[in-house]
């Protein structure tokens, strides 16, 4: 489903990703862990198409298509979704307007009919019910005045509505207390299916207690230095990242 081959990327001339290889199959959950500055968020951004990154080598194939030349909106249409570390506040745009535009853009890309206001409200009510999210959030401006937990829940709601086949969670646990973390994890788990894959990017092991990965990869200095199953996450929690940073250096 996702094949990353020898991916190198620079930010302002500085090499951040230095040869990443990663293959994700449908239905799998992969976790990428690593110390600060190892390139975790850069990887998430490069996959989702944020500008400001120069890919100098390698490719990212998504369902066989090289997505590196695509605009972020095209990648969203292809089914790539990024849950943000810091979801952006957009004053003046209500959540409903935003999500309706988003869903219809994606549907249009996928060759499906756009939904009218009534049809959209039906979808959104279904999803908020499924995720146990209050409808109050819909009338408010996107993320404005939302608590950290609400912002992340809002991202998960967008994910539920857009039905991506690859969800990338970029440090979704940062700034969340344990209850908010559980709610977010429950949402992610609810949306998992044998056809969909999830890439969890995190510094800490605790999120992985709730979203249990099939594979864990350690990223250090722009490379994957070790891969294993979920026990690797527990090992990291005990020992820290020191051995890998030394190894990569």
């Amino acid at each position, binding site marked *: 489903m996702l094949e990353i081959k020898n991916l190198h990327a620079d930010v302002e001339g500085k090499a951040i990703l230095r040869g990443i290889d990663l293959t994700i199959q449908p239905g799998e959950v992969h976790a990428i862990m690593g110390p600060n500055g190892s390139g975790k968020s850069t990887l998430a951004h490069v996959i*989702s198409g*944020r500008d400001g990154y120069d890919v100098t080598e390698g490719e990212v194939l998504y369902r066989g298509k090289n997505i590196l030349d695509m605009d972020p909106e095209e990648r969203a249409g292809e089914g790539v979704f*990024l849950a943000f570390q810091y979801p*952006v506040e*957009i*004053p003046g745009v209500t959540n409903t307007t935003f999500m309706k*535009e988003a869903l219809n853009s994606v549907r249009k890309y996928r060759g499906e009919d756009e939904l009218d206001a009534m049809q959209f409200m039906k979808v959104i009510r279904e999803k908020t019910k499924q995720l146990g999210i209050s409808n109050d959030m819909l009338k408010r401006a996107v993320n404005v005045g939302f608590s950290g937990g609400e912002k992340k829940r809002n991202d998960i709601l967008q994910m539920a509505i857009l039905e991506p086949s690859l969800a990338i969670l970029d440090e979704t646990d940062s700034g969340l207390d344990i209850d908010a973390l559980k709610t977010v994890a429950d949402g992610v788990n609810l949306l998992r299916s044998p056809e969909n894959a999830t890439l969890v990017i995190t510094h800490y092991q605790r999120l992985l207690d709730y979203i249990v990965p099939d594979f864990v990869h350690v990223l250090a200095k722009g490379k994957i230095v070790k891969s294993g199953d979920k026990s690797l996450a527990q090992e990291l929690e005990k020992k820290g990242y020191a051995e890998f940073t030394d190894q990569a250096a």
Partner: protein
Amino acid sequence: MKQDNAMTTPFVDQYDGLKPALPGHALPWMTALRDRALDSFAEAGLPTQRRESWKYTNLRGLKQLELTEQALTPQPISIDRAPSLLPDGSAYRVVFVNGGFRSDLSDLAGLPEGVTLGSVAELAESQPQRVEALLAAHRDTNDQPLVALNTAFMRDGLLLQLEAGRKLDKTLEVIHVNSAENGVFAHNARNLISLATGSEATILEHHIGLNGAAYYINAANDVTLAEGATLRHYRIQAEGENAVHTSTMNGQLAGGSFYDGFTLSIGAGLSRNETSMKLTAAGARCHLNGGYLMRDKQHCDTTTVVDHLSPQTSCREVFKGVLDDRSRGVFQGRIVVHPQAQQTDGHQLNKVLLLTDTAEINAKPELEIYADDVKCSHGCSAGEVDHDALFYLRSRGLSEDSAKALLIQAFLAESVSEISDEALHDVFLNKISDWLAI
């Protein structure tokens, strides 16, 4: 003030020839008023950039208009329907075409008692004392040469006068349609609005110009609000792409009165919207809000002067600008708190989005405070569309263009939400969407 003859003379030279045909010529007071105004204009000259308040706006372009006697006598154009923004019957309607009142396109049926509404030119004939009294409320000064120019040459405009306690029960839509299809022209529109104690009105004013040849509109608006009167005055300036539009408003606000103004500027090659408000007694409130959306090489100048002359008066200004291509915006906001004006509450905000590297904003907030117990703030910012927000929206599937349009719309909605008559929000939001869709 040294004058620029090349731009001033065409007007001055035509005056004697045009005088006999100007409305109210038979009225000695009117002729005297015009003569004095012409002298004042001739002395001051058409404003140039040497004048501090005109530093960023240049009327040089007017030189290219051949302002002959004929051009200063605007010719009617044939039009059988005014492009109204409000459903028929939901509003009173006053229509001016190339400056002249068109009763056949207007709708004044069912006006309540105590309301005088119509054309200044017609009322100067039928009720000269009324027009004289309204014009006397304002004195031409050397500070406003464009108002003096207007007084000398004014032909027609809106007159709205409400007696004490009267309320205009429907919105008044004032439509000015302009086109130079029958040749270049210049028109001086004079609008006189006076609301007596406790009266209330809502005006939606729409200036529409057909694209093509250039023309010049110089409007002057005199607004007087007595104790406790309320005027909601919302304007859309959508002149033709080559037009020059200057508008000067002078307002006097008595105790407890409220002026709620919003101006959306999207048209004209060059425009200047100048507002001067005097808050003369406690409880006078003034809201001057607006948006300016410019593209290509358009130029839009918003200049406001608010004089707090009494204790306990307040003003609030929220302006939002969106500048694309090589367009240019000017915002000059002056708030003067006079020594006696304790407990003034003044707030001013001007925020601009620059969509290109070549767009330009000249912003000059000026607070002059001579009292010590006041609350006054101002904010000014200019920036690009938020990159993080743009990526957030695009990562959810929105195209770059729709993401940008959504963010610009949201940016402008903040100023539109200042309009106190919520029923009219959509009129402005729709205009903004239309502009974004181009």
